[in-house]
C-alpha cells in the first residue's frame, strides 16, 4: 500500500509560450500553472494568496482569457499562450492599465496588484464592463485587503477611456 501512496508521478514534458517566449518544461502532473510560473520559470510577478481560487492574486491571461492559475494544472495548458504581469509592458512602456494603476494609486502593498492588472487587462478585452458598477462586479474575483477598490475602479475607467 505504502509503495503506491509514496510514488511521485512521472514528469511530463509540456510546452508553454509565456510572454512570447517558448518554454519546454518537465513537470509532474500536480504542478499548478501558478507554481510552474513562480518556481520553474522564476516569474514571481504572479502571486499566490490562497492557492484555492479564492483571492485572484494568481490571475494570468491564458490565450487572452483571465484565469486563476492556482486552479489550473500546468499540464492542462500544454501549448497555451500565457501572459503574466511581466509581459504587459512593451519595450519599457507600461500597459495603459499599469500606468492607470500608478496614476490612481490603485494599490498599497502591491501583492494583489499583478492579479488585479491581469484581470483588468482581460476585462478590457472582454468588452463587457460599461460602467463603474459593472467593473466592480466583474473585478470582484480579485481581493484587495488594502482596500484600494475605488481607486482600482477609477484606474480601469481611465484605461477604458471612460470619464
Amino acid at each position, binding site marked *: 500500500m*505504502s509503495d503506491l501512496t509514496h510514488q*511521485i508521478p512521472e514528469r511530463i514534458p509540456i510546452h508553454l509560450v509565456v510572454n512570447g517566449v517558448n518554454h519546454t518544461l518537465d513537470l509532474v502532473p500536480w504542478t499548478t500553472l501558478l507554481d510552474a510560473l513562480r518556481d520553474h520559470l522564476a516569474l514571481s510577478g504572479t502571486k499566490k494568496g490562497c492557492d484555492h481560487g479564492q483571492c485572484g492574486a494568481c490571475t494570468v491571461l491564458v490565450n487572452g482569457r483571465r484565469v486563476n492559475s492556482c486552479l489550473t494544472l500546468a499540464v492542462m495548458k500544454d501549448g497555451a499562450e500565457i501572459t503574466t504581469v511581466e509581459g504587459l509592458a512593451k519595450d519599457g512602456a507600461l500597459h495603459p492599465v499599469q500606468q492607470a494603476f*500608478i496614476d490612481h*494609486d490603485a*494599490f498599497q*502593498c502591491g*501583492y494583489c*496588484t499583478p492579479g488585479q492588472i491581469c484581470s483588468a487587462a482581460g476585462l478590457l478585452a472582454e468588452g463587457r464592463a460599461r460602467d463603474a458598477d459593472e467593473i466592480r462586479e466583474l473585478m470582484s474575483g480579485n481581493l*484587495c485587503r488594502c*482596500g484600494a477598490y475605488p481607486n482600482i475602479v477609477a484606474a480601469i475607467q481611465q484605461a477604458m477611456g471612460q470619464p
Partner: protein
Amino acid sequence: MNAYIGTPTSRVDGRAKVTGAAKYAGEFPAGGLVHGFVVEATIPCGRIATIDASETLKVKGVLDVLTHANRPPLADKDEAWKDEVAPEGSPFRPLYDDKIKFNGQPIALVIAEDWESAKFAATLVRVEYEQQGFATDLEGERSKAAEKDRPHKPRGDAAAALARADVRHEADYVIPTEHHNPMELYATTAIWESDGKLTIYDKTQGVQNVHKFLCTVFDKKPDDIRVVSPYVGGAFGSGLRPQYQVVLATLGALALKRSVRVVLTRQQMYGLGYRPMTIERVGLGAKSDGTLDAVTHEAIAVTSRYEDFARNDTGWAEQLYSSPNSRFSHKLVHLDVSTPCDMRAPGAASGVCALECAMDELSVALKLDPIELRLKCYSDRDQSENLPYTSKQLHECYARGAEAFGWSRRSPAPRSMRDGKELVGWGMATGVWEALQMPVAVRIVLTSNGHAEVSCAASDIGTGTYTIVAQVAADALGLPIENISVRLADSTLPQAPVEGGSWMAASSAHAVLAAAEEVRKELLGLAGKMPGSPLAGAELADTALIDGSIARADDNSRAVTIADAMRHGGVERIEKEKLNQFAEDKKHARNTHSAVFAEVRVDEELGIIRVTRIVSAVAAGRILNTKTGRSQIMGGVVWGIGMALHEETVMDHRFGRIMNANIAEYHIPVNADVHDIDVIFVDEADAHINKLGVKGLGEIGIVGVPASIANAVYHATGKRIRRFPITLDKVLD
C-alpha cells in the same frame, strides 16, 4: 522647501509593483533552495504522545522532518523569545517541546527538494496526542474574566452618577475574533551563505525586531544573521511580532546547512495572531439636556494561556466626551488559543465601535441629533491627564463631513427614508487614535552629482514609507525626487522600530530632516571656505538647500551649488547618519480624530445590506502625501465595512478549532461591496507635536466606521444589532 511635501506624489515604488518586479519574502532565489511545509496540531490542548515520520521520509525528495524531538538547539529562557512588542507572559516557541497550546500549532516541518513533495509528504506524518480538557469560548468563560488594567484612572463616582442619570443607556456590544488576512502568505526564505551566515528574507513589519529575536533564539552574533524585507504584501499588525515560520525556516537552514523556504498556507495563517473577540460593556448617563454625567466602559477580551495581550479598548471617551464621572477597565479571559495580536487600530477599532453605537442609542433616547449630542459633550481636553491637545479639529470634522454628506437632509425617525424596495439609513460616528512618534535613524549619502541615497531599517507595508521618505528628503536636500533613492527594511540599515501604531510617517520624516541638516552643515562648511563665498559667515540656521544649491534662506540668490561646494572641498560624497529623538512633551495630549458618515441601503425582504456612501473627515495634522494618505484612509474605511458587515472568525468550541480558516468563508469586502468613499482632510495646523506637524494615518481610517454603519442600519431598519458583524440573518430575525 515644500516642492513635494503635501502633494499627491505617486508612489516611488509604483513601477516595481505594477510590473511584478517587486520581490516579496517567499520569492527570493537561492542556489540549492529546498522547501519546508508545516504540519499543525489538530487538538487545542494536550501533548504529543508520538510523532511518526517514517512514512514521510520514504517519499522521494524528502530530506528531513524536524520536530521537537530532533530539532537544532533553541533558547530555553523566555527573555530570548521576547521581541520588542511582546506582551507579558511566556512567548510561544515553535517545535520547542511536546506541549500543545492551540489548535493549528506547528508541530513538524517537512523539508523536501520541491514544494509539492513536501506538501504531500506532510500528510503522511502520523501524530498521536494525549488530549486535555480545554476551553475556547469567551462568552462561556465570561465569569472567569480578571481585571488586567485600568487604561485610565477613574474620575468621580461613575456608578452613582449612572444610577441617578435622567437618561441612561447600558449595553453589551460583541466584537468577534477577526484575522488580518494580508494578501501575501506568511513566508521566509532563509539563505545559507557560503560562510555559514544567514540572510533571512522575511515577511515582517520590523526587520530589526526579527533580527534581534533570531539572534537570541538561536544564540547567534549580530553579524551572523541579516534580515531583509523590501516589500511586504500587507500585514496590518500581523507582522509586528516575529511569526513562527521565520523560526522554522531558520531551524531548517541550520539543520540542513542549506537554504530553506517556508510559506504558510492561507489556512495555517489562522494559527497566527488575530483581533481578540471582546465583549464591550458601555454605560452612559446623561442629563435631560444631553450633557454626560457618567461614562463606564468595561472590555472583556480573549487572550491565550501563556501571554496577556491587552490593548486600550475602553479609555477613548476620555479623549472625546466630557463627563465628570468615568470608570474604565480591561479584563482578560485565558483560553486555549494562540495569543491575539495588534490588528489595525488595536483596541480603538473595537472599543470606539461600542462607544459610538452607545452614543447613538443615547441620542435616540434623548431625541437629540447624534452630532448635536457629540457637540454638547465635546471635550477640549484629554480628561484622563487633564491636558490640552497639540491640536484637535474634531468639530471641523463634524462640520465638513456633515456638509459633504448632506446630513441636514436626514429624517431622524428610523425606517423613515426609503428608495423603492430598499430602506435607507444614515448614521454617523466619531473616530480617535493616538499620534505617536518613535526614535528613528536615517543615513543620507549625497554624491557630488546631486543624487542622494536615503536609508533606514523601517518597513513599507504598503503605507507609502518609500514615497514620503523620498518626498521629505527631496525637499530637505533641495533636489528633484528623481535624484533620491530610498533603501528600507534591511536590518543592517540605521535603527527603526517596527512599522505600526501610525508612528512611522512622523518618525521617519523627522529622521530624514535631522540627517539632511547634518548634510547641510557639512556643505555650509565647504561652501563657506570658498573664496568670495556668498555664504561666508552664514549660520546654519540661516541657510537652506534649494534647487541643487546651498543658499541663504532669506536671499536664495546668494547660493553655492552642491557640486561646486563639494568639488572645491575635494569631497566626492557626504555621508551622514542621525538618530532623531523627539523631545518629551508632558503638557499636551496627542491624537488624531475623524467624523464618519455612512449611508446604507437594506433590502427589506432579503435583509441584504449595501454601504452605498461613506464620508470620512479626518483631522490628522499635516498630510505628507495627499494621494497615498487618502488611500490609507480609504483602506481603513474598507476595513470598517468588513468589521461592520462581514468579518468573523468562527470557532467550533466542541473542538476548539476555527471552522472558516480560508478567505472564501472568512468574508472580507470585495470590489462590489465598496461604493463611494469620500475622504476629507480637515486643515489642522499643529505647532506643538513636531516640526512638520505630522500625526500619522494608518489607524484612524478604520476607527468609527463600523459604528457609523451599525447606526445607519438602525436608522434604516429600526433594529439595533449589537453583535458584529451585522449579517442579513440578524436583520431579518
